């Protein structure tokens, strides 16, 4: 009986080969462990098994069917549950426990009552019932994993796939998690479980193991078989022995030389260190003393306050309360000199990826002010000591994790610090590299008397420390020699001792949780028989409801969605103004007669011009025009009045600032008009007749009689913004899931692409419509642009248009991978055609070639027509129906394209 058959499966990521021609049969009804350090291909294999990832080469059969067949995947998908790697990776952090579970339950089509019963069952048996209202993001690591498990179990799977479910979880939560799994197994023995893990000690409890390294299977069998075959006492040893010869080359178990030296020489002392962020206490009253040359370990799960404590010691963050001393001096964040005595290696891999190995070392040496003449020597020494001789000019990113770790240590040591602070330096490294790393640490401590302060969540590493502290929830539970800690608790392993401490610390409440786990069978058969629907409204609504909740809880996105377009409308309304008003001009009047003043008066009376101080000479004219103060200068020649009197031709000079061509054109027009007008006035005064006015051109500015910019621009800008913002937000919504990993729920649950798309789209359509109403309100009130036509027509068009805009966002999201790319892509794909070709500034009928074609087809063109028609031209539906047709047609085209391009499997 096998649950999955894997035949000659390979997988590449670009040049990297993650799986090398693997053939494997996984027995059904068993707890199967996939064993190996990070990056050996465990996760890739599991995501292939779950159907989340597309098979590149080879064949995989799961639950008696070919996983490359879509029909088979659709059929068995409700029977597989997949929990991806990473704490709460497929959960939604802003949603509460209840909401997360409701979401998953709806995807699998349970009724309201059934959902309630299952959620209560699962949460009660996992101890999450009390926390139903808490957002998933605020749960501890262990609780997140339990919630992940509940979400996976909500549909009674036959095949449960767990990818490193206990990494980064404290030992107590870990043991509880395994108890939970084994109880589930007891109640439902036919269920097959595959678990990936990097903790060798956990693997001993599984029924069957697959040891993996470097994309290949090293060995399979029960734990006992593997131990016997390698004649080892522990799986960790067994694993090392299974590794190929070249990897094991030169490997020796770590030996710790005892600590000697003066016990009163204190390197670090902390008293009552406390750190609060708001009302959350990250570190609570922590005290310890560490001798010079000692290796001191901090053991605890993710988020227990280890890193924060270390940061307070380095002066990176000031402690809320309490004090710390380094080498007898109080830690002062401003004292740069103590920092030179400390080397720090942080949890995140913190080298400059853009700098080579040597450049990284040199940069750090310089920043620590190692004397210039010593730098080359120090760097060379570090390279030999930490075995980097083969890679001095490589970029860190191209190096294997183990070497990068050594480089980090070399960088931390380059200035010969007396104290090394290492924050989980070995996470993700294979056992051999980890042991090699430890040998370096021991040498530093014993030979160079460097004090080492290290945090870890590996028990066997903690055991190697001279002394250690166990930390949980910001508190130090106890500190002592590892052996003494075990002795105090009467346990044989450090893990058991730690669990004992944790149980004591958390009181009885959490530990004494276990309730009877029962998965009632009738519901199961119901799910099994439910046929696969082509389109389920419930699943779509489930996605819609979840998206709406998330949006509401993300302040940046919802603010941007709600007021972003208002801000931009405001800015563009004033920014893209074609009005030319209040032009500053000055006069150089060399005539100074009544007539010359009469001429200038005709200008100062106009609302377009603002008179400035008169000019005296050309130099001043030049200066004031260069500074941009004057847009126009009039020069009236001397003898102006006299020449007119005599009928001698004369000329008024006008200088226009041509720096802004558009404005200059307008100024030219105004000046010519005013000049003509003045001439006519003069002629009329002189002859008392109106000779030249036999022909007139009567200009009527329609729809916008005052020729104001705002009534012309605002109805055009609203469609523009209504396209850009919703498209961007929708694109982000999908790509965010890709980046955060929750997209895996689309891959492995029965939800179809159409349901997913529509569910994601609808909240943004609603948001866009609200946005549209707000923009109309702003237009009518602030900009005083009245709506003269039928608002219902405009609203109807806006609804169609919002569906198109969000649809374009979905389309953008299918071809982008990162949020930044999605944002820019959505912006470029909407803004450029909308501004240039949709008739916002120049009408489509004035365009030629490709621009004309884009303009005719692009939905924004028609929306701008409708918007202008309703706002300015007093039109209603019967005048505008022809512009509706392209909008209605665009919707199915865009949505179909988006659905076709969306992938239901990861590539």
């Amino acid at each position, binding site marked *: 009986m096998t649950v999955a058959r894997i035949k000659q499966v390979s997988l590449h990521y670009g040049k990297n080969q993650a799986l090398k021609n693997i053939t494997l049969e996984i027995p059904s009804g068993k707890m199967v462990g996939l064993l190996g350090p990070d990056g050996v291909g465990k996760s890739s294999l599991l995501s292939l098994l779950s159907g989340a990832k597309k098979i590149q080469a080879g064949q995989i059969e799961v639950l008696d069917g070919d996983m490359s067949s879509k029909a088979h995947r659709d059929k068995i998908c409700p029977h597989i549950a997949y929990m991806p790697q990473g704490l709460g990776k497929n959960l939604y952090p802003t949603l509460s426990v209840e909401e997360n579970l409701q979401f998953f339950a709806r995807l699998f089509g349970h009724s309201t009552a059934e959902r309630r019963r299952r959620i209560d069952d699962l949460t009660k048996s996992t101890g999450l019932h009390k926390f139903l209202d808490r957002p998933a993001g605020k749960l501890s690591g262990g609780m997140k994993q339990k919630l992940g498990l509940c979400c996976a179990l909500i549909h009674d799977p036959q095949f449960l796939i767990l990818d490193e479910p206990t990494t980064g979880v404290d030992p107590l939560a870990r043991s509880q998690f395994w108890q939970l799994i084994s109880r589930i197994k007891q109640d439902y023995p036919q269920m097959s479980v595959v678990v990936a893990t990097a903790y060798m000690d956990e693997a001993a409890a599984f029924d069957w193991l697959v040891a993996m390294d470097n994309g290949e299977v090293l060995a399979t069998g029960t734990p006992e078989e593997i131990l016997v075959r390698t004649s080892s006492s522990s799986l960790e040893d067994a694993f090392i022995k299974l590794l190929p010869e070249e990897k094991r080359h030169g490997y020796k178990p770590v030996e710790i030389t005892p600590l000697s030296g003066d016990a009163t020489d204190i390197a670090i002392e902390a008293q009552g260190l406390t750190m609060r962020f708001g009302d959350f206490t990250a570190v609570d009253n922590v005290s310890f003393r560490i001798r010079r040359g000692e290796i001191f370990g901090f053991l605890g799960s993710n988020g227990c306050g280890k890193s924060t404590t270390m940061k307070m010691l380095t002066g990176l963050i000031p402690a809320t309360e309490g004090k710390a001393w380094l080498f007898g001096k109080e830690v002062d964040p401003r004292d740069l000199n103590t*920092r030179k005595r400390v080397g720090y290696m942080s949890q995140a891999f*913190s080298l400059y990826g*853009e700098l080579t190995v040597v450049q990284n070392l040199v940069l*750090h040496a310089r920043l620590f002010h190692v004397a210039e003449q010593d730098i080359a020597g120090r760097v060379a020494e570090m390279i030999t000591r930490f075995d980097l001789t083969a890679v001095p000019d490589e970029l860190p990113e191209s190096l294997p994790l183990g070497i990068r770790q050594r480089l980090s240590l070399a960088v931390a040591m380059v200035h010969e610090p007396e104290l090394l602070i290492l924050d989980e330096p070995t996470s993700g490294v294979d056992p051999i590299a980890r042991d090699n790393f430890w040998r370096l640490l021991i040498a530093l401590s014993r030979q160079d008397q460097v004090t080492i302060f290290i945090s870890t969540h590996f028990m066997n590493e903690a055991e190697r420390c001279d002394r250690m502290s166990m930390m949980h929830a910001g508190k130090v539970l106890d500190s002592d020699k590892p052996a003494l800690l075990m002795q105090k608790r009467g346990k044989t392993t450090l893990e058991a001792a730690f669990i004992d401490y944790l149980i004591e610390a958390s009181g009885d409440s959490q530990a004494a949780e276990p309730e009877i786990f029962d998965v009632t069978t009738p519901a199961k058969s119901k799910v099994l028989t439910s046929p696969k629907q082509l389109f389920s409204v419930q699943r779509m609504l489930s996605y819609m409801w979840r998206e709406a909740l998330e949006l509401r809880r993300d302040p940046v996105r919802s603010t941007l969605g709600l007021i972003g377009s208002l801000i931009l409308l405001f800015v563009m309304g004033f920014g893209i103004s074609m009005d030319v008003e209040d032009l500053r001009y000055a006069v150089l009047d060399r005539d100074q007669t009544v007539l010359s003043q009469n001429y200038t008066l005709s200008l100062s009376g106009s609302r377009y011009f603002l008179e400035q101080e008169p000019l005296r000479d050309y130099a001043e004219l030049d200066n004031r025009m260069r500074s941009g103060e004057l847009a126009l200068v009039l020069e009236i020649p001397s003898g102006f009045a006299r020449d007119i009197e005599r009928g001698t031709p*004369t000329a008024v000079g006008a200088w226009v600032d041509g720096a802004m*061509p558009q*404005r200059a054109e307008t100024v030219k027009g105004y000046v010519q008009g005013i000049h003509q007008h003045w001439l006519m006035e003069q002629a009329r005064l002189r002859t008392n007749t109106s000779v030249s006015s036999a022909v007139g051109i009567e200009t009527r*500015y329609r729809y916008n009689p005052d020729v104001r910019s705002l009534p012309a621009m605002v109805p055009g800008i609203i469609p523009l913004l209504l396209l850009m913002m919703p498209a961007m937000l929708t694109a982000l919504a999908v790509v965010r899931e890709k980046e955060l990993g929750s997209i895996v729920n689309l891959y492995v649950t029965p939800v179809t692409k159409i349901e997913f798309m529509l569910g994601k789209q609808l909240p943004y359509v609603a948001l866009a419509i609200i946005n549209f109403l707000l923009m109309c309100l702003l237009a009518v009130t602030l900009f005083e642009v009245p709506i003269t036509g039928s608002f219902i027509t405009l609203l109807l068009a806006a609804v169609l248009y919002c569906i198109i805009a969000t649809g374009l966002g979905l389309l953008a999201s299918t071809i982008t991978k990162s949020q930044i790319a999605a944002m820019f892509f959505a912006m470029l794909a909407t803004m450029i055609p909308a501004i240039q070709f949709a008739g916002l500034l*120049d009408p489509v009928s004035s365009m030629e070639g490709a621009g004309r074609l884009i303009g005719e087809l692009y939905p924004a063109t028609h929306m701008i027509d409708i918007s202008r028609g309703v706002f300015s031209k007093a039109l209603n539906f019967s005048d505008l129906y022809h512009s509706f047709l392209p909008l209605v047609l665009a919707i199915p085209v865009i949505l179909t394209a988006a659905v076709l391009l969306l992938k239901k499997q990861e590539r």
Partner: protein
Amino acid sequence: MRALANIYRLGVKELWSLRRDKIMLFLIFYTFTISVYTTATAMPETLHKAPIAIVDEDASPLSARIVSAFYPPQFNTPELISLQQMDPGMDSGRYTFVVNIPPNFQSDILAGNITNIQLSTDATRMSQAFSGSGYIQQIIMAEISEFLQHQRGLASTPVDLELRVRFNPTLEKVWFGSVMQIINNVTMLSIILTGAALIREREHGTLEHLLVMPVTPTEIMLAKIWSMGVVVLFAAAFSLTFVIQGALKVPIEGSVMLFLLGAALHLFATTSLGIFIATLARNMPQFGMLMILILLPLQMLSGGSTPRESMPDLVQNIMLAAPTTHFVSQAQAILYRGAGLDVVWPQFLWLVIIGSVLFTFSLSRFRKAITQMA
């Protein structure tokens, strides 16, 4: 001394990082070359193929003369329509202009009777409506007076208007568009580069690493400011010389060095702003969204795209606090009008003041933020 050395080293490190960031390099190259060139050359003439229709109720030689006076590229060949077609045609946006020549137009003119041509303009199309209607009036009047001159002589006007356009005599939009593109790029890139440099360090965890070294936040911030500032300044100088003066053959009136000095002052303010935005955002996507909301107003309301004087007073006053306003005004003065330091010193002073305020503010915000983010 030691602080200066640190600032120098950290800045060089930023340049190293940038050198390996292919996407950023492409962005810088693209915006300062291809984008400047295409935007400048693609600036449309105001009046290009404006759709025009004529209702000719006269059908005389004069009206035919007027109809034939409109032709591409400024106007579409006029469509001859009936009076009934006029309203629907304008409502649907088919025509921006409709000229209505009344019956008996020619005979009325010749008889000296008062008569009017009606010009209807779709004023929702501002760009065409404004310059177009003036242009159409001039064309029609010219046709009429030429027609009349044939019939009988016409006296010339006693006072002439000599219009001279300074700084850009032929009003070429390329001159304006290309230089404005550089001015906008300087602002945009300096904010993106510094902001992204800070966020990248934070995402990679290297910022935390820097903070445990004997360097101060002020040094970190100054290093980012000078290095990214130099990159943008260099790119702007390159673009001015090779793209604008070279490829586009736009004459630059003033001193490029003076412009670069002004740009340096401006960069002090905008790079500080970039860091400030980066402290507000938790990650790149948030940074991108904030950028859009901050950058667009800074650029659109600076006076770079439309004259400041046509904005409401309130907006004008608020924008006095924005560095872009002063940068645009000094850049236009120097590059278009050849102004010297004696003319632009008030803008320089403004930039120094705004830059110092922004820097101080960003620095205190940066100090606070790094303790939280670390």
